[in-house]
């Protein structure tokens, strides 16, 4: 071996790159024809910089929806917000802040992003397809200007005649290193890491698939909430829902006609230890009839274990208490009787509710108050609940009489009283009369208005019935997207060139250069390793 090695001339990191191909965008719009203007606008929209800015704008646009309650997420919270911020709410309404994620401006941002995405994917796919068919790029004339470069000489006694043997060997070595190799006269060109761009494209195409899947799910899907009290049932028709949201293309008539009846709702809580009062188990049992005429089968729904029926899913999303209350009016007639769901307001299940009795004579009655599952007297003398299970239930009500305002035809929430034309019923001391009832108690209302009986406590389940068609599509899209992402982040494209030329005396000068299109920690040590392998040329002497 009589080769001589000179130290690599230039060492340093490769220039960063490997991102989107940036069209050389003009600085400003010069005077253009409509066609040129359109092309200019298109190039602006699909440029990397615009994509980046749109991403950041999308992130900022999502913020208000997390700070202000959303119609589609929690309409009760929206109603509460409107009451506490009467001046601000009309403005927020105008800006669509109560439904950010379906507002025109939010949609505009993500539609622009999708267009930018597609406008980037298509040309890049074409470029990539061409690159796949093309040969690795030709060796630059000055290899020594590349960041990782080495040169050495092979002596006259090193076997078969110089340059060709060196290059043949180099091609074999590079192929073994999974480069795509092409041999020119006097040089070898090689490239690897094509999967990076493939991964990049896969990732972006998958995101489009995810968005399409989500769009299908929300256009044809629906979701509804209903409160079902123990011992009663639910049939899957629009009118039965308390809350129902559906996509623009879903129709109410397409709801599968199943019915279910709730036998028991179990809510167990920790009774002792440090976390007393924390929920332990929620379970709803009963029977479900998949379609009219079929035989009912039993069901058992728990949190994290929904019931699947006819392509929809039934989830247990909440529970609460529905005191069974009987109201007699001034004439002694039973004008209202049955369970009244009270909505839990906190983790101790202090619950708020309203009872409207429009048929009462001589005046309509409205009641508003609290249900306390385990009543105790609080520090300020007012009743509080100390445990979420109904061990000492009590009902605390204020009664109003007058006009409930139901005749105007305007829809009203069953959970709030319109007190415009109602007067609070007062006791003997001229202060609002608070009824405090336990199961079995009856309270007589003053002024011959009637009486209220708290019969017993029932529990209710808050069920969510949802159908999201093709829900697997966004999931599959994301799984593929992660695969593409990993390829695009971890495959590192590299180009390699080897040039060999005779230098007289039978010696051959060999130049080797690497070019990383993505910065790597140490291209130089990789180069040294490669050079070592290249220099291990098969020797004629070895064979002899």
């Amino acid at each position, binding site marked *: 071996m009589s080769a001589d090695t000179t130290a690599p001339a230039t060492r340093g990191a490769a220039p960063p790159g490997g991102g989107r191909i940036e069209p050389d965008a003009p600085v400003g719009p010069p005077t253009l024809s409509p066609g040129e203007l359109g092309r200019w606008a298109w190039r602006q929209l699909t440029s990397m910089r615009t994509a980046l800015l749109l991403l950041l704008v999308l*992130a900022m646009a999502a913020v208000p929806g*997390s700070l202000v309650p959303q119609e589609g997420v929690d309409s009760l919270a929206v109603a509460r917000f409107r009451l506490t911020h009467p001046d601000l709410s009309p403005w927020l309404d105008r800006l669509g802040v109560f439904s950010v994620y379906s507002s025109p401006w939010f949609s505009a941002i993500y539609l622009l992003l999708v267009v930018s995405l597609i406008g980037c994917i298509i040309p890049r796919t074409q470029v990539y397809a061409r690159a796949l068919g093309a040969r690795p790029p030709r060796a630059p004339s000055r290899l020594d200007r590349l960041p990782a470069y080495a040169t050495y000489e092979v002596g006259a006694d090193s076997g078969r005649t110089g340059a060709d043997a060196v290059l043949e060997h180099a091609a074999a070595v590079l192929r073994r290193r999974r480069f795509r190799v092409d041999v020119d006269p006097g040089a070898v060109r090689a490239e690897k890491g094509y999967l990076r761009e493939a991964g990049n494209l896969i990732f972006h195409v998958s995101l489009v698939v995810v968005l399409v899947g989500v769009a299908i799910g929300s256009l044809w899907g629906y979701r509804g909430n209903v409160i079902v009290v123990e011992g009663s049932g639910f049939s899957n028709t629009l009118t039965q829902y308390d809350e129902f949201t559906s996509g623009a293309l879903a129709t109410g008539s397409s709801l599968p006609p199943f019915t279910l009846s709730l036998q028991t709702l179990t809510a167990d809580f920790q009774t002792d230890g440090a976390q007393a009062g*924390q929920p332990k188990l929620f379970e709803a049992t009963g029977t479900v009839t998949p379609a009219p005429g079929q035989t009912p089968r039993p069901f058992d729904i*728990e949190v994290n274990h929904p019931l699947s029926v006819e392509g929809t899913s039934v989830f247990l999303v909440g529970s609460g208490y529905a005191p069974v209350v009987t109201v007699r009016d001034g004439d002694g007639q039973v004008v209202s009787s049955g369970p009244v769901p009270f909505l839990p307001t906190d983790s101790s299940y202090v619950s708020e509710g309203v009872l409207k009795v429009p048929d009462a004579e001589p005046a309509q009655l409205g009641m508003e108050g609290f249900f306390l599952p385990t009543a105790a007297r609080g520090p300020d003398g007012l009743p509080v609940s100390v445990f979420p299970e109904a061990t000492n239930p009590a009902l605390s009500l204020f009664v109003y009489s007058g006009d409930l305002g139901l005749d105007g035809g305007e829809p009203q929430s069953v959970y709030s009283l319109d007190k415009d034309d109602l007067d609070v019923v007062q006791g003997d001391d001229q202060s609002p009369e608070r009824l405090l009832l336990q199961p079995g108690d009856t309270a007589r209302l003053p002024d011959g208005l009637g009486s209220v009986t708290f019969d017993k406590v029932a529990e209710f389940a808050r069920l969510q019935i949802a159908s999201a068609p093709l829900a697997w599509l966004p999931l599959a899209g994301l799984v593929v*997207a992660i695969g593409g992402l990993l390829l695009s982040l971890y495959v590192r494209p590299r180009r390699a060139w080897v040039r060999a030329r005779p230098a007289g005396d039978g010696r051959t000068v060999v130049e080797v250069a690497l070019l990383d299109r993505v910065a790597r920690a140490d291209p130089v040590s990789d180069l040294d390793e490669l050079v070592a392998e290249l220099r291990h040329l098969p020797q004629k002497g070895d064979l002899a």
Partner: protein
Amino acid sequence: MNTEALAQLANVGVASATVVLALAWLTHLVEWAAAREVRPARLDSDASLVSAGGHSAGGSSPATGVAAEGETSPSPSRPDRFGQAGLSLTVLGTALLAAGVLARALAAGRVPWGNMYEFAVTGALVVLVVYLGLVLRAGIQWLAPIVTGFAVVVLGLAILVYVPAGPLVPALDSYWLVLHVSAAAIAGGAFVVGAGTSALFLLKQRAEQRAGAPVTTGPLGRLPTTEQMDRLAFQVHAFAFPLWTFAALIAGPIWAQNAWGRYWGWDPKEVWAFITWVVYAGYLHARATAGWRGRGAAVLALVGFATFLFNFVGINLFVSGLHSYAF
């Protein structure tokens, strides 16, 4: 050992880990302060040693080198020794914390991330483990003041949301708790390292721009080159981002579909997980966009980390949503 004793042990482990890590933090701060005082002197002595070696006999008198060494400090590697001590303390603190978290898991009979306190403590452990792993693999001791400081602050604030060990609420009782939360926690640990690296990158880059030359002295001189830090930040984020995608956009929605009947519902926690994802996606884009490389990308990494922190602290404490029990 019974549950009570285990729970007690867990608290002792976490408390002692906090103290040891606070000491580690202090030690690393002293390391930086020492670097500020000592480095120039050390450079002088280095220079004179080099020149003494270079001109074999004549050029500079060996006496200069001796004087420089004798005058300035007992040892030129004082910062290094503080750094070594800080690292040892960090290893000890991490071991104590791991023991505490393990005891907590055994006491509760489940994974140790069922509420905000546990998530904070386990999250601090994950950050430290990610950091120590990268100290071994990539020699990132220079990040110590930031990582130990972060862990101490998180552990200290965790006391504010302390709850005794106990069973899970029903909504959390699912094996997705293991997948979803552990993926989010590991991604979070990497985000901390990435944000710390990006912050130091920005500091050093600004100092170098002002000086118009590479900074080799003082605390910033103990850092790697800005190029190396930029590359490390990318590698850490390239690890964290796919994991975050899995946690926030795959495991989370699957679990939400099972528990709440929809895979995506714009719950505040989901919104901020999405925002974090979008900002980090922006970070990856920025690295390939002219004018955004380096500085712009580093700022985006910090913004992404801020949204991640806000999701854990702000959304848990100030905004009510379905995730209000923990992370």
